[in-house]
């Protein structure tokens, strides 16, 4: 059986890669995909702790994270579609109506 640390470090690395994707990509769809990647890294942490502490609460938390992530993906993609209709672009740099 692997030590718990290995799972935690693996999910920290995947989370950091997701943060990198959110920061450097200039395509809203890929930014949303990177957010999904970060959520999954956190889910892996939950499941690892649930296994090593012998508690089911972690798995229930992952269940709720999945529900919220599905809702987030649906609403995010709908927002992307309406933004694309408005300005024919997926670049977050072009979304600056609220910029002062």
């Amino acid at each position, binding site marked *: 059986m692997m030590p718990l640390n290995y*799972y935690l470090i693996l999910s920290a690395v995947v989370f*950091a890669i997701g943060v990198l994707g959110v920061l450097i990509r200039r395509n809203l769809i890929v930014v*949303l*995909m990177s957010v999904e990647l970060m959520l999954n890294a956190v889910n892996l942490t939950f499941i690892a702790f649930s296994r090593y502490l012998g508690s089911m609460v972690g798995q229930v938390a992952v269940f709720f994270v999945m529900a919220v992530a599905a809702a987030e993906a649906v*609403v995010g993609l709908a927002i992307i579609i309406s933004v694309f209709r408005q300005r024919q672009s997926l670049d977050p740099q072009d979304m600056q109506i609220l910029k002062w």
Partner: protein
Amino acid sequence: MDLATLIFFVLAGLLIISSLLVVFLRDVVHCALALVAALLIIAIFFVSLHAPMVGILQIMVYAGAVMVLFLFVIMFLNPTVLERPRALWWSAAGILVLLLGGLLVPLFFNNEPPGDPVASTELFGSPEMLAKSLFGDFVLPFEIASVLLLVAIVGAVVLAKRERSAP
């Protein structure tokens, strides 16, 4: 090094490679395929950590429903414009992420974590156990999640509906 350790490291390497591909591939469809690969590998980790129900849900909900939604939007919008790379921004973001990773990784060496997993019974992680906690202790958050999903459906329909110009 026994077989379980070897399999863990192979899967971990594949997970990191596919996550990097999600971030660094140019074509959006290729990014989506790499994300599917990463989600499937995470599902394998779930199953190996005695969470088979959550692993199946991961494959059905994420690799199934959410990724189909992503691919539909990609096909619908057809984003062919290539991104312009910005060297300064990339290096700044890279340094920031390295700092974040450097902060996160040593945290896990600080305390004495539970090295040995609790001896689990046969039932641990089974759908029965998950359902018992979900509909016992967590029944109120479960109902709130259902309301949240309903709100998300209605919101997505309203947002994506094409606005009719006044007749």
